[in-house]
């Protein structure tokens, strides 16, 4: 048991050390970077499984870094939520790193490969630290590490659009973390502590003396984390950054980076401020209204995009709305569904971005209106895309259905039955922008054939073009896509394992 305590700390330090070894390694042998990074993240993933097993059977892990007891030192707390999140983060990153083996060579210049892995591992270390830390100033440090890492993941591509998007992301993310730091300052001023547990104890005693200061701190946190996690009116940086990055980066940014900020916000909201303040102040209503607007408007914006990755990026805005809706409802089922949606959406969005990258790898197609025949050219990739898109819409048997069903139950619990209508409308809007792509890929070959035969009058040639063939992308790109697609189906049919973690979290928080 004693050695288990140190494991979460070792995970973060190990990832950080590997990150800083990467540029040196790249100088010596460029091809070693990818296997070493993948091996490191793979072993971190196995370690997180051990941690999760211990947390589920032995209770919460509390570890004081370098021996300083909690009120003075930094404390690492791994409860069921944190253990689930670090498992998810390292697992998805592991799959994305396997995918990057060949994708990175195709999408990036050779000289930036070493630095790319540095940025990737730094982002992962920052995210894991943010999830397991129990010290709010440490939150700020890890937020900045994650933010800078994510910006460099976007900028790694080196094109005009990517550089511009990275700068926009950097400036807005810095404003966001400035707001968060100001909020931390207010909390420190009210309570005199930086440890979440001690803040919670102190805040109960003094909350009647500083009503306005608590409101101010809460609003600063809401704006800061809203910018960071792209809550609807503050999402302006997201579409550019997520669509112009290389596809493995887009997958990390869209499925994981945005979510860890929500987890941090949830921790501050429910652990530090506590349920009473959460219900008394109107922050809950604000989050509810913004998330409903996000679910509808994000889908509308996604509908009008032509570029596939941009469409997926706007879809992320809508899905962040779902997660915030779960938090805003504040009922056991609502919160559970919001947390489940974080997991399911990580699988779905990673799968979608990786398939978009695979399609670009084989055919060079980026626009959604050029997908005709794709189901015959790349059957495995398009099959995974179809599964992820069905799950996104919320069709039963796929993961997305469970979380949407949970949100509907949560809104009944919170006595707001009209929200079910919003969930259904948003699901239908999802269908309007995913189904045309799938329909085109499988059923619209006639159109293209007609055009071809018109142009070069060679019927035989176009016939060969439409023949069913297996994907022409490397195996290292196909395997993660297939695993993710199977994971979505698994989550849809047997959500029990994940729900066990989430139920434990919800009973602890509410």
């Amino acid at each position, binding site marked *: 048991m004693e050695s288990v305590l140190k494991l979460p700390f070792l995970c973060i330090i190990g990832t950080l050390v590997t990150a800083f070894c990467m540029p040196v390694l790249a100088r010596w042998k460029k091809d070693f970077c990818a296997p070493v990074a993948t091996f490191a993240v793979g072993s971190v993933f196995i370690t997180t499984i051990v941690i999760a097993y211990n947390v589920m059977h032995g209770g919460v892990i509390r570890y004081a870094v370098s021996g300083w007891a909690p009120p003075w030192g930094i404390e690492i707390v791994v409860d069921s939520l944190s253990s689930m999140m670090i498992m998810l983060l390292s697992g998805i990153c592991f799959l994305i790193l396997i995918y990057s083996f060949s994708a990175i060579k195709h999408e990036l210049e050779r000289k930036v490969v070493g630095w790319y892995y540095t940025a990737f591992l730094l982002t992962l270390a920052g995210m894991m630290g943010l999830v397991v830390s129990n010290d709010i*100033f440490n939150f*700020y*440090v890890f937020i*900045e590490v994650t933010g*800078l890492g994510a*910006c*460099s993941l976007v*900028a790694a591509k*080196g094109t*005009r659009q990517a*550089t*511009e998007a*990275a*700068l926009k992301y*950097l*400036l807005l993310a*810095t*404003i966001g973390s*400035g707001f968060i*730091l*100001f909020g931390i*300052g207010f909390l*420190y*001023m009210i309570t005199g502590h930086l440890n979440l547990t001690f803040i919670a104890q102190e805040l109960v005693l003094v909350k009647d003396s500083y009503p306005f200061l608590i409101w101010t701190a809460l609003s600063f946190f809401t704006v800061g984390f809203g910018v960071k996690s792209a809550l609807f009116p503050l999402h302006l940086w997201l579409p550019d950054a997520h669509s112009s990055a290389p596809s493995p980066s887009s997958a990390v940014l869209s499925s994981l980076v945005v979510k860890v900020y929500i987890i941090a916000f949830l921790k501050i909201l429910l652990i530090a401020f506590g349920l009473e303040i959460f219900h008394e102040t109107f922050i809950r209503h604000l989050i509810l209204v913004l998330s409903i607007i996000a679910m509808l408007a994000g889908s509308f914006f996604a509908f009008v995009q032509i570029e596939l990755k941009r469409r997926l990026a706007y879809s992320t805005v809508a899905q962040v709305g779902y997660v915030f809706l779960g938090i805003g409802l504040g009922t056991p089922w609502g919160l559970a569904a919001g947390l489940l949606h974080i997991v399911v959406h990580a699988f779905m969005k990673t799968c979608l971005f990786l398939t978009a990258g695979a399609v670009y790898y084989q055919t060079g197609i980026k626009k959604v209106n050029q997908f005709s025949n794709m189901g015959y050219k790349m059957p495995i990739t398009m099959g995974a895309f179809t599964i992820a898109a069905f799950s996104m819409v919320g069709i039963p048997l796929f993961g997305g259905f469970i979380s949407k069903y949970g949100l509907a139950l949560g809104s009944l619990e919170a006595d707001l039955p009209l929200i079910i209508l919003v969930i259904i409308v948003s699901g239908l809007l999802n269908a309007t922008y995913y189904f045309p792509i799938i329909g085109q890929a499988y059923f619209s070959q006639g159109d293209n054939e007609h055009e071809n035969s018109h142009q070069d009058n060679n019927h035989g040639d176009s016939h060969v073009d439409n023949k069913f063939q297996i994907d022409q992308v490397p195996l290292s790109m196909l395997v993660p896509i297939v695993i993710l697609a199977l994971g979505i189906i698994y989550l849809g049919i047997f959500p029990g394992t994940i729900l066990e973690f989430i139920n434990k979290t919800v009973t602890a928080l509410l």
Partner: protein
Amino acid sequence: MDLELLFINFPYFVAIILFSMGTLIVLTQTNLIKKVIGINILQSAIFLFFITVGNIEGGVPPIYDPQFPDVLYINPLPSCLMLTGIVVSFSVTAFALALIVKLYLFYGTICTPNFMKLK
């Protein structure tokens, strides 16, 4: 009475005003260097705020002196936190400036409206 309260809390007001100014500059200026300056103003405001939180009227720097064991020390923790904050601010500025240099090589200008014309 109210004026006196305002005078006591003077540094907090300055911090909030600087913070708003910085945010406004980042969001409204079109020159990218000015945006970075706005980021720096914003972060300096936060440093000022934290150091004000740690300050105690009439306190001395927290260095233990055996001759005066009973003097009032200021709270050193917020100042220490701000050392980290300064490092973060420094790296964000460096990264932003590097990106601006790259954009200048692409477009030949650092004014955002001109980017649209040159596309």
